[in-house]
């Protein structure tokens, strides 16, 4: 059984006991435990079920590479699925549930899949579910969704209880990994004067060296680590972060760090996770190495673990996975596990060493402790179901004939080590195959490089393939100094720390155990635990013609689980290489992509949630609208009042009331969101003649002109009233949503194309509040406010004037978007709210009614005015909208002119703007199509037009609409059939609504009302 030892545990504090539950069972552990060590201490070896076959699975590793032991952690607002028990620090009250089991972890119905595994080989889904096609949606997909998947998503209505944030850091050198190599590299670089940020993903410095032993500069590794950390902490140019993983490396030495601040103390004040957005000049990865499993039958039975992990549990947490542990290996390092176990008073019945001659000094040490060593042997199969009960041994070079059955309750396996090259690879660093160590290591000749073509990244220690302590420290010292040198620092000649560790005999690559394992054994030898990919699956893929490792990965799902193949990658491609008869380096690896391990969505979102999910832009009058029950409409990031319903009034009724009051007497609109861009300079007129389709250079000072703006493709982009302020300055009004885009568009042309034109622009949108006073009594209101002459003679239609109204400096524009007598008044924004109050107060005698965007839309539609985004959609040119009058014939050029002359634009039968009236007075559905006879090449019903704007007009007391119709203006009076909103799916025929083509100007076609 797995249990807590009487003593030991570098990380655990046995004076502090924590209670926790797993699947409702109550357990205890100690401060410093991980959930993995605490479960093992309570003999809870079975921790989950696999993804495909629902096989019982236990923990196999001790760190970030763990593929099996994923749990749903926490409850309610702090529930999170797919959490690795090996990287979950224990806290008092922790609640965890195993995943992927039904109805219970011990008895799982899906486990029947395992019995059928012979019939669920690689590519099973692709092969089986191809036919019949209709079965996919109704039969296969629902069943697969039910049985597949790992953790469950949090409840959709529950909101994450924690907060998150980002942090931008700029450093000379980012060192990732706080093992002895990372510490040494940071120290060497910092001593030379570099600003260093050192990240370690776990809660402890020193990596695995204190477990593995040896000595550094004559010290015990643990003492050396403590001393080095103290030295680094004392250096002002060094920053150290624990629980902060280097998650990804990107172009120009940009890196992401993922800091877990309160995962180990939930509910504590402060953010839970912090995403570090790091701009480094150099990056050094000291990310260590990960041990590889061996591929033998039953290597996934709970109790089979990596040899290094077994050692970690004993040394770091005082926990042993078993009383009797068989060690199986192809290298010397695993002997350390046997020695550790033996020294802890546990039984090691045998070490099976696949190498014919066995190992070196460590083997001798094990033998001296009385441990039986069997060279040339391996495991034929592991015995047991939910728990290891023994192993059947065999000759490694045979086919699996059993030599001996050895009872045991744990197996410690080691297939060698793979450097963690992920971060090196994220931004394009290439790998080289190391024949001696049988692993891929970073190729320094093909490093990730920056804008100058020089490498911005290096790798040190085990991550660089230096698996011995001596070599790792020497490499780290050199890499730290080299990084400092690359940063321009003078590096002193100092000695690398001297280290001693037992010498190791070379490993022998073992990709399958035994070498000639029968099909039966290969079908139980797992490569990818989380996705249940076995040796036989990869071999099948090869037989079926999969040669590319990337294709094999997707076909078999090898390495596609949440652990991204940290354990399975090399073993899988070695099996593929063998099956293809192609050397491993030619087969290559799949692509490593960020993040190194999954990071939380919260960390990615940072502070952007709730009220600050996105900026909401508010006008100076926003609070007044709020206090007056405005219903909001988002316009870009602005919030504008849609209408102001009175108590008990529907939105529809409110809109009608607002329109009727405005047309009958007086309305007022907050138009502050309107874009206002100043264009000034000797070339400003010439510039605006290019920006707009019509002529702006000839606009007299004091006048206003409506203008259209197209993009280079000729399509209508924005519109608005342009005002000539002075000899060399114009103010361009844009749509509310278009201001920033139009300003950027102008600057783009000025900075990139016409950089020698003397023009300056300024976005003054926010400088002014703007109030539209609209209706037959508008002039009377302005006269009541007093301060300037707003008479027809002094201020005629399409002119402007500056002056004072209600003791406030104003600029008044006589423009109208409603067809009524209308003034738009610009006020410095700091005075906007006060001015608005004065207007509201003064308007009472005329029942002045504030109106929102919907009333604005209806009134402009009644007048046949187009709306950008309704009548235009990025494919409409001004000519489609009957706006020829606003397109200059005199100008030699303007943006869009050439495009509008292309054949498709000038073809003559483009859909064009018309008004539409239903025969029964009803309102046409928005976006409805006018149906035409016949079907197109895709079998769809032909169409000859569509509705672009449609409203109930309270003024005309019927539905009105605008639309684009083929040859529309030539077909006045014709009746078209438009698709109705509700269609009877069972009938073949469309339900349609009849509407007549009319002029788009429904109200006051002569313009008498606005020109008074």
């Amino acid at each position, binding site marked *: 059984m797995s249990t807590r030892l009487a003593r030991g545990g570098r990380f655990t504090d046995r004076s502090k006991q924590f209670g926790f539950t797993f699947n409702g069972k109550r357990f205890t552990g100690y401060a410093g435990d991980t959930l993995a060590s605490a479960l093992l201490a309570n003999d809870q070896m079975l921790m989950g079920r696999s993804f495909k076959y629902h096989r019982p699975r236990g923990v196999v590793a001790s760190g970030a590479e763990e593929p099996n032991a994923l749990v749903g952690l926490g409850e309610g607002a702090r529930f999170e699925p797919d959490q690795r028990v090996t990287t979950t620090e224990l806290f008092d009250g922790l609640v965890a549930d195993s995943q992927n089991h039904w109805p219970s972890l011990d008895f799982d119905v899906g486990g029947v899949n395992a019995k059928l595994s012979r019939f669920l080989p690689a590519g099973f889904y692709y092969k089986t579910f191809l036919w019949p096609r209709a079965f996919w949606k109704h039969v296969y997909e629902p069943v697969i969704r039910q049985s597949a998947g790992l953790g469950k998503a949090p409840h959709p209505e529950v909101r994450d209880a924690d*907060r998150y*944030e*980002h*942090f*931008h*850091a*700029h450093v000379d050198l980012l060192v990732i990994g706080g093992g002895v190599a990372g510490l040494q590299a940071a120290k060497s670089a910092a001593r030379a004067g570099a600003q260093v940020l050192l990240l370690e993903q776990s809660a402890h410095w020193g990596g695995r060296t204190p477990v593995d032993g040896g000595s550094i500069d004559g010290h015990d590794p643990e003492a050396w680590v403590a001393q080095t950390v103290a030295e680094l902490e004392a250096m002002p140019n060094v*920053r150290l972060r624990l629980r902060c993983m280097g998650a990804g490396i990107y172009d120009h030495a940009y890196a992401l760090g993922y800091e877990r601040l309160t995962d180990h103390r939930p509910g*504590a*004040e*402060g*953010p839970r996770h*912090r995403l570090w*957005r790091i*701009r480094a000049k150099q990056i050094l990865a000291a990310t260590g190495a990960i041990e590889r499993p061996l591929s033998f039958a039953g290597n996934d039975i709970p109790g089979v673990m990596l040899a290094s992990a077994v050692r970690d549990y004993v040394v770091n947490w005082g926990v042993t996975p078993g009383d009797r542990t068989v060690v199986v290996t192809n290298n010397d390092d695993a002997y350390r596990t046997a020695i550790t176990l033996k020294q802890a008073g546990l039984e090691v019945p045998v070490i099976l060493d696949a190498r014919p001659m066995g190992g070196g000094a460590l083997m001798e040490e094990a033998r001296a402790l009385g441990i039986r060593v069997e060279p040339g042997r391996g495991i034929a199969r592991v015995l047991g179901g939910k728990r290891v009960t023994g192993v059947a041994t065999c000759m490694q070079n045979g086919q699996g004939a059993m030599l001996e059955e050895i009872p045991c309750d744990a197996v410690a396996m080691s297939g060698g080590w793979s450097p963690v090259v992920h971060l090196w690879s994220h931004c394009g660093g290439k790998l080289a195959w190391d024949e001696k160590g049988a692993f891929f290591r970073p190729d320094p000749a093909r490093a990730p490089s920056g804008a100058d073509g020089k490498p911005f990244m290096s790798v040190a220690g085990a991550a660089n393939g230096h698996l011995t302590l001596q070599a790792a420290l020497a490499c780290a010292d050199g890499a730290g100094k080299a990084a400092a040198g690359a940063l321009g620092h003078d590096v002193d000649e100092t000695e690398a720390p001297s280290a001693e560790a037992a010498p190791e005999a070379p490993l022998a690559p073992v990709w399958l155990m035994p070498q000639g394992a029968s099909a039966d054994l290969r079908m139980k030898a797992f490569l990818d635990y989380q996705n249940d990919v076995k040796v036989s699956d990869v071999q099948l893929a090869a037989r079926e013609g999969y040669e590319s490792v990337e294709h094999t990965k997707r076909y078999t799902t090898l390495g596609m689980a949440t652990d991204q193949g940290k354990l399975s990658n090399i073993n899988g491609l070695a099996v593929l290489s063998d099956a293809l008869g192609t050397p491993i380096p030619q087969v290559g690896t799949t692509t490593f992509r960020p993040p190194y391990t999954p990071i939380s969505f919260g960390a990615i979102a*940072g*502070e*952007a949630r709730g*009220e*600050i999910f*996105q*900026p*909401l*832009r*508010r*006008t*100076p009058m926003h609070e*007044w609208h709020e*206090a*007056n029950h405005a219903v909001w409409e988002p316009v870009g*990031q*602005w919030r504008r009042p849609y209408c*102001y319903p*009175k108590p008990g009034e529907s939105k529809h009724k409110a809109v009608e009331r607002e329109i009727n009051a405005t047309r009958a007497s007086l309305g007022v609109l907050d138009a502050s969101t309107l874009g206002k861009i*100043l264009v*000034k*300079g*000797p070339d400003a007129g010439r510039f605006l003649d290019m920006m707009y389709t019509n002529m702006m250079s000839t606009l007299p000072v004091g006048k206003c002109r409506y203008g259209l703006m197209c993009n280079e493709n000729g399509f209508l982009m924005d519109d608005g009233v342009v005002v000539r302020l002075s000899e060399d*300055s114009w103010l361009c009004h844009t749509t509310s949503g278009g201001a920033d885009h139009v300003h950027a568009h102008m600057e783009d042309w000025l900075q990139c194309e016409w950089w020698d034109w*003397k023009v*300056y622009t*300024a976005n*003054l*949108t*926010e*400088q*002014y509040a703007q109030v539209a006073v609209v209706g037959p009594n508008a002039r009377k209101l302005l006269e009541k406010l007093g301060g300037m002459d707003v008479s027809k003679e002094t201020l005629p239609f399409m002119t402007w004037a500056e002056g004072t109204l*209600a*003791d406030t400096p104003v600029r008044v524009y006589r423009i109208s978007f409603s067809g009524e007598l209308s003034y738009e008044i610009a006020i*410095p*924004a*700091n*005075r906007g*709210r*006060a*001015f608005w*109050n*004065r207007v*509201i*107060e003064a308007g009472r005698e005329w029942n002045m009614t504030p109106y929102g965007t919907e009333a604005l839309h209806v009134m402009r539609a009644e007048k046949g005015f187009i709306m950008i985004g309704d009548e235009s959609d990025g494919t409409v040119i001004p000519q489609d909208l009957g706006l020829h009058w606003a397109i200059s014939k005199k100008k030699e050029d303007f943006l869009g002119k050439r495009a509008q002359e292309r054949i498709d634009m000038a073809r003559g039968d483009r859909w064009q703007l018309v008004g539409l009236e239903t025969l029964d007075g009803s309102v046409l559905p928005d976006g409805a199509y006018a149906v035409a006879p016949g079907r197109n090449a895709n079998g769809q019903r032909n169409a000859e037009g569509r509705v672009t704007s449609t409203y109930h007009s309270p003024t005309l007391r019927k539905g009105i609409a605008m639309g684009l119709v083929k040859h529309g203006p030539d077909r006045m009076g014709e009746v078209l059939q438009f698709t109705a909103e509700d269609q009877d799916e069972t009938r073949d025929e469309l339900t349609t609504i009849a509407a007549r083509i009319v002029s788009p100007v429904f109200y006051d076609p002569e313009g008498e009302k606005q020109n008074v």
Partner: protein
Amino acid sequence: MCDVITSQTEPSAPMAGALSEGLLRVEALPPQGQISLRGDFSDGFRDAVCGITGTGFPDPLGAAESGDRALLWMSRDELLFLLPYEAATETLAQLNAALAGQHFAATDVSDARAQFRVTGPHLRDVLAKLSPTDMAPGAFAPGEVRRSHLAQVAAGYWLRGPEEAQVFVFRSVGDYAFRVLTTAAAPGGEVGFHEA
């Protein structure tokens, strides 16, 4: 309608009175006169501008202060002149007169922005949560100016002292900026990266 009736006509700055205290003190500033200046930074431009502002001409990324006025470097052809709100209209007229004959643009943007004073020992760490600007003392010294962003909106930063910055954003997002600054400065969010 529950009209809020007031005959007040005094200008009021966005977020007037807003104040929060956490790792930083965040307070909205009263109306601030601001004039945006574009020009070619020639000697003639410099002389004309400084003759009116009464300040020196700022170095790139810098600010030139004199009493209650300051000239901030915004880009290689743009300056921002800060002055008392009441003085903006008249000063703008003076600048227009002094620069007449040159190609320039001087615009009153006194009402276009929300301004905040943020103070406290965690200043650099909290601002680094919201802006990609290098906030290290060696990279961003007191007296300097940066144009960057504050979470999702454009922002300017004028470092007034080791523990004080003036942050300006467009007025419509003043509420957002205040909330974001307050959130980033909430207790428990200490980072300990920059020297406090």
